[in-house]
């Protein structure tokens, strides 16, 4: 008897007020934020599915809105969309340079405060094409994510960045990076990474520089820095006060002159950003973690850093004997 009263109590008290059918949701797949003419422009790609003869077909719709704040922009979408915007399935966030330069902190705060977001999606920077035009091509976020991941694994010419890692890096020293994408001739083109300093866009790294950057950060798996092909790499980083020691364990196709050709490139790359006062590898953070007292005592640590490189290269086995083909003229 008691049990029935309790069960009935639970059931009658709830009343089914918050029942949401799947058909009442519009599932946002890609979110794009731009800032034009003192207004936020918000573009969303909504996924939908329909059953056609036993086969499921996915189709996309794009909605755009503009407002002076991001929250208002979300509200304005309801002037066009007939379903509730559901943000838990976002797979990609696209930002433009103007959006970052003006109000990156506002955008980040919006993602922190709204609980519906799961901040594990990728973020990219879109260049040289208006956001709305790109979104209207209705490219699936999965395609771009696969592009980023495959490129990163095979060539390290770019690196995917997710929102939570971006937030962590911004909290440390307001610097982060984003992979860059353009759209030319109906094709998505991936270009290196763009550096962000103090919530502003600093500069875009070329693909070669991005490879060097990945090599120094120990996030490189295989790549080609012509004429050398790196098959495996591990970078060990040790710090001793202001001395930074990089030790590379690489497997290359030709050991000859590898160290001599790579070393100056790395050194010039690091010193370039040292002069620009930009801690590209977050080395000061490393020193802060390893040697807290020295970090506290030394101001302007970045300018005082000295870099040292050492290599331990292995050559990959080559089973060809004898001379290779040459071009005949």
């Amino acid at each position, binding site marked *: 008897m008691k049990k029935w009263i309790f069960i009935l109590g*639970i059931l009658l008290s709830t*009343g089914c007020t918050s029942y*949401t059918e799947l058909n009442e949701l519009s599932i946002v797949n890609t979110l794009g934020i731009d800032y034009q003419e003192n207004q936020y422009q918000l573009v969303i790609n909504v996924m939908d599915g329909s059953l056609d003869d036993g086969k499921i077909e996915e189709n996309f719709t794009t909605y755009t809105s503009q407002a002076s704040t991001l929250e208002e922009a979300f509200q304005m979408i309801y002037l066009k969309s007939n379903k509730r915007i559901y943000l*838990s399935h976002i797979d990609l966030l696209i930002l433009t340079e103007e959006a970052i330069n003006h109000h990156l902190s506002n955008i980040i705060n919006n993602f922190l405060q709204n609980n519906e977001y799961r901040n594990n999606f990728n973020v990219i920077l879109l260049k040289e094409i208006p956001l709305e035009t790109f979104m209207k091509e209705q490219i699936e976020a999965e395609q771009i994510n696969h592009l980023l991941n495959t490129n990163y694994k095979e060539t390290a010419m770019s690196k995917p960045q997710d929102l939570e890692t971006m937030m962590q890096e911004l909290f440390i020293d307001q610097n982060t990076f984003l992979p860059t994408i353009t759209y030319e001739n109906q094709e998505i083109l991936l270009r290196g990474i763009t550096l962000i300093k103090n919530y502003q866009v600093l500069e875009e790294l070329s693909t070669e520089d991005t490879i060097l950057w990945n090599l120094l950060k120990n996030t490189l798996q295989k790549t080609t820095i012509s004429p050398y092909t790196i098959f495996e790499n591990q970078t060990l980083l040790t710090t001793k006060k202001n001395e930074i020691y990089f030790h590379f364990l690489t497997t290359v196709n030709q050991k000859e002159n590898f160290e001599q050709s790579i070393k100056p490139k790395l050194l010039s790359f690091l010193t370039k950003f040292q002069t620009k006062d930009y801690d590209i590898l977050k080395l000061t953070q490393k020193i802060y973690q390893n040697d807290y007292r020295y970090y506290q005592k030394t101001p302007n640590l970045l300018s005082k850093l000295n870099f040292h490189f050492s290599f331990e290269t292995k050559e990959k086995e080559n089973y060809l004997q004898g001379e290779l083909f040459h071009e005949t003229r």
Partner: protein
Amino acid sequence: MIEQLKRDTNQASDIIDKKIEINNQTIHIVYSEVLASSEDITGTILRNISYIVEEDLLKNEDLFTYLYNNIPGHNRVIVKDYADFLKKIWNGYTIIYISDQEIFAFETKAQLDRGINTVDSELSIRGPKDSFTENFNKNFGLIRRRIKSEHLWIADLEIGKETKTKVGVFYMQNIVEDTLVKEVIHNLKKIDIDGIIDSGYLKKYLVKKNSVFPTIITTERPDLVSMALLEGKCCILVDNSPYALIMPCFFIDFFHNPDDYYQKAFSITFIRFIRVLAFFIAIFIPAYYIAITTHNHDSVTTDLLINFLSQRRSVPFPALVEGLIMTISFEILRESDMRMASTMGTAVSILGGLVLGDAAVQAGIISPIMIIVVAISAISGLAFTSIELTSAIRFWRILLMILAAMLGIYGIFLGLILLVTKLASITSFQKPYLAPFSPFIKVEQKDAILKINSGNQIKKRNPLLTTKNRIRGR
């Protein structure tokens, strides 16, 4: 007394009264034609009476003593009074009546049962296939054959004012706890009812608090009963019922099969995990599906969500209503399948499959995924032999579906908490239902879900069931 009998039964046509004259004395042979075996009567009693030579009677003065000593027969007793007289007639005895003070009877019961058949409700794959029948003595014999021990005691009772059904309480005297037997016999003696038709009638008198989950095992298999007796449980057999009752029982007993003990331990561990998984699937899967399509859309991957969305597009009902329609249709189909005669059975199954399957989906009433979910859940629920557990699963499945529709996955959590609370508060004859998990008994873990061979170690009995005799052997 015979006249009284004829008056009381309104000259019943099955009561036969044969008169035989011996030595100027009339003896009556009274029996019930339907309950007594006429072969036994003609073959032994009447034939032996016909061999009586009048000269022999000169040596013995008393016809009663002569007949009592010289007629061979099975289970010969003296009848004391009218109540005893009636009892003997209704139990298939043949009464030899000389006078109101000189009556005796022979047991000549007719075979009114179907003989020992194979089990049909609890299939045995690799084990003995005999099952109990409606005859109390045969059932008793099947147990005695397996436990040939002087410690197997039985307490005989007769319950039911009109039916006077014979009920036997079996226990191993050197193993079982005396309090359990006393409580069972006390509860049975308190019963004041006109009739006991089946052992199921006794359940509500033995159990104090009724709950959805069964606290007594019913079985048709004598090997399961023998195993239970050797563990220290007590068993009840009822005349005219092929189902024996075993008590006390634990929740984990419903996940065990007697066949488990005849096979390798390793494969049985896997099978038991599958049964536990089936239990959880049967209860939680429809509720989980309803929760993720109504409240917790972020708990599934995007592809699956789009899949569900496209399938549910054409369905006019909310997910809960869809689920309830499917569940109830399945139960109706199952019920009609059980009651239908076998000749029409296949036609009904085909109709049910077609209606509940393709046609409903084509008509846009049900989504395909809901059919899959409910079918998996229903089939998992049928993996258990106990009908009561299956209906308990059915009740909790519907309750959880409603909770999930109201409160999503949080509703499922509440349902899980309620289910565990309910199971933890049930006791079966003062033994906790969830033993050996709560309270945790280390010794019993070898046979609860995991089945581990104890090798050369001493095998011990469950400490909850017996304190007298813990050691089983090696």
